[in-house]
C-alpha cells in the first residue's frame, strides 16, 4: 500500500528524536556506562510506592474525575502556594496530567491555530517543536548560548516576535543545559511578554532541582503573569517518579476550560494509582519538609560539582549548570561535531552521552552528560572521557 497518501505530511515530516537514534547504537554496546539518561537514579521513595500498593489492595481501580482526584488537586494547590507563592484553585485551575509532557501537548492544541508562532528557546527538551507542529503551529527556535548562561534574553525574544507570535515556551531549569533564569532576566522577559500580550507555557518540571543561592522564582508569580501563564510541573524529577507518568498543569480557569476538554476526550484521567502515589508524595512532603526531595537534591548537587569540575580539569569550556541534573560542556575545541564526539566516545571508551544537537541545531558543539549516576560509575566515565579527550 502507498501509505504516504494517507498520512499527514506535516506530521510525517517531523524528524525522529535524535535521542532515539543514539539509543539504538547504545543498545548494541553491552557494558557501556551511560550518562545519557534523563531521569533520576533514585527509585521512588518507598512510602510512595507503598501508598500505590495499598490503593490497589483497597480496590481503588476506578476512573477518577477528569481533573484528577480532588484530594490530590488540593495537595498540588497547597504545594504550589507554599513552595512558589502560586495561587491556583484546586476546583478548576489544576489539572492532573500524564506527566508534564501531556501538559505541553494540551497547551499547544488549546492555543494554536494554523500559522500561529510559538517561540522555543533552544537547546531544550525534544518535545516542544514537534508538539507545536502537531498542533498546526510554527515553532520559532531561539538560540541561547553559554555566554549568557543559556538564558533566554529579553532582546532575543523581542527580535523573534512577529505579529503571528502567540506564545513562548519557557523551559527552565533547562534540560539539557542546566541553565536557570535569574531574577533580573525573568523580570525583563515578563515585560516583553506583557507588552506583546503573549501566553507563556512555563515548563518547571525541574523546579525542585536548582542549586544556586537565589530563591527559585516561577514566572507565574510575577505581577500580571498568572493570567497569561500555563504552568507545567510533575512528579518525575522531584520525587523520582518518571515511570508513573504523573504531572499537572495549572492555568486560569478560562484557559483551563479549553485544555480540560482535550484531556477529557483523549486521556479521560491519569492512572488512579499514580494519583494516589503523587498525593502521598506531597502529603508526606508537607509534613517532613520534603525530606525525600532534599536528600536527592543534595546528592545531585555533590555529583554536579564533581562532574563540572572534571570537565574543567579536562580543559573543556563548561558552563556551570545550576539546575536539573545535566552538564552541557562545549566540545568544540576537539574539532569534532557533537555526533562524532558521542559516537567515537561510545565506540572507543564505552561511555554514552547525548549529542547537543538532539536538543536543537544550536546544541552543536556540546554534549549532554547526566550526573544522576552512581558515584563509582561517574568516576569511571569521567576518567574515560578525559582519556578520550586527551588522545584526540
Amino acid at each position, binding site marked *: 500500500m502507498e501509505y504516504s497518501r494517507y498520512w499527514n505530511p506535516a506530521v510525517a515530516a517531523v524528524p525522529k528524536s535524535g*535521542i532515539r537514534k543514539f*539509543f539504538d547504537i547504545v543498545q548494541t554496546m553491552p557494558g*557501556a556506562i*551511560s550518562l*545519557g*539518561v534523563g*531521569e533520576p537514579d533514585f527509585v521512588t521513595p518507598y512510602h510512595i510506592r507503598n501508598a500505590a500498593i495499598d490503593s490497589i489492595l483497597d480496590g481503588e481501580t476506578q476512573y477518577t474525575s477528569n481533573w484528577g482526584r480532588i484530594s490530590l488537586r488540593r495537595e498540588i494547590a497547597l504545594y504550589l502556594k507554599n513552595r512558589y507563592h502560586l495561587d491556583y484553585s484546586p476546583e478548576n485551575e489544576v489539572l492532573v496530567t500524564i506527566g508534564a509532557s501531556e501538559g505541553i501537548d494540551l497547551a499547544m492544541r488549546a492555543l494554536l491555530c494554523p500559522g500561529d508562532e510559538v517561540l522555543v528557546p533552544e537547546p531544550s527538551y525534544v518535545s516542544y517543536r514537534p508538539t507545536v507542529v502537531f498542533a498546526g503551529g510554527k515553532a520559532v527556535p531561539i538560540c541561547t548560548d553559554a555566554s549568557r548562561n543559556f538564558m533566554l534574553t529579553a532582546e532575543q525574544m523581542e527580535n523573534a516576535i512577529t505579529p503571528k507570535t502567540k506564545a513562548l515556551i519557557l523551559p527552565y531549569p533547562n534540560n539539557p543545559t542546566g541553565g536557570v533564569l535569574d531574577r533580573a532576566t525573568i523580570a525583563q522577559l515578563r515585560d516583553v511578554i506583557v507588552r506583546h500580550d503573549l501566553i507563556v507555557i512555563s515548563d518547571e518540571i525541574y523546579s525542585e532541582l536548582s542549586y544556586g543561592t537565589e530563591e527559585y522564582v516561577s514566572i507565574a508569580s510575577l505581577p500580571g503573569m498568572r493570567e497569561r501563564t500555563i504552568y507545567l510541573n510533575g512528579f518525575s524529577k522531584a520525587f523520582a517518579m518518571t515511570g508513573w507518568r504523573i504531572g499537572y498543569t495549572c492555568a486560569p480557569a478560562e484557559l483551563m476550560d479549553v485544555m480540560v476538554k482535550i484531556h477529557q476526550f483523549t486521556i479521560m484521567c491519569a492512572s488512579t494509582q499514580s494519583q494516589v502515589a503523587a498525593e502521598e508524595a506531597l502529603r508526606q512532603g508537607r509534613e517532613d519538609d520534603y525530606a525525600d526531595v532534599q536528600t536527592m537534591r543534595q546528592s545531585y548537587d555533590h555529583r554536579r560539582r564533581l562532574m563540572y569540575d572534571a570537565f574543567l580539569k579536562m580543559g573543556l569550556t563548561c558552563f556551570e549548570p545550576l539546575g536539573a541534573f545535566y552538564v552541557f560542556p562545549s566540545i568544540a575545541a576537539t574539532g569534532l561535531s557533537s555526533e562524532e564526539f558521542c559516537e567515537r566516545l561510545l565506540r572507543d571508551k564505552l561511555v554514552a552521552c547525548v549529542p547537543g544537537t*538532539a536538543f536543537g541545531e544550536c546544541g552543536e558543539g556540546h554534549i549532554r552528560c547526566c550526573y544522576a549516576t552512581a558515584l563509582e560509575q561517574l568516576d569511571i566515565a569521567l576518567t574515560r572521557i578525559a582519556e578520550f579527550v586527551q588522545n584526540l
Partner: protein
Amino acid sequence: MQNLQIELLQLLQQDCRLPLEKLAVMLGQTPEAVGAMIDDMEKRGIILRYSPVINWDKTDKERVEAMIEVRVTPQRDEGFDALAKRIYRFDEVKTVYLMSGAYDLLLLVEAHTLKELGYFVSTKLSVLDNVTGTATHFVLKRYKSDGVIFEGDPQDKRLAVNP
C-alpha cells in the same frame, strides 16, 4: 552543628575512602577546609572510626552472632552506666544499647561458635550482680546493616538513553 559538617558526615558514612580532594569538590570547599573539619570532628569524638561494612557470610570465618536482651537492677547513683561498662568490656560484646521497654540493655554479641557464645552467656553475663535475666536471640541472617542491603542489591533499571 553546621549543615556542611552533617553533609560531610553523610558522605563519609557512604564511603569513608573518598579522597579529600573529591570531598572538597563535592562540597564546594577547599581540601584544606575539609581536612580541618574532619580533624576537628575526630578530636571531638564525632568520628570514632573508619570501618567497612562486611558481609561475613561470604567468608570462611566461623562466626555466631546473637542479640541478647538483658534485664538489670539499676544501681544507686550510677543507674545503668556502671553495669553497662562491666558488660561492654567483654570482647565478645560488640554493641550495647540502653533501651526503653520490656528490658534494659540490648547487646550484640559475637563468638566463633555456638558453644562459645552459650558459655559467655551462662558463665560471664548471667552471673553478674544486678543482672536479673537474659534472653538470647541468635542471628540467622543479615539482610541489611548500616543502610546497606546485603544481597540482591537493586540494579539500575533505566534505559541507557532517554530525553
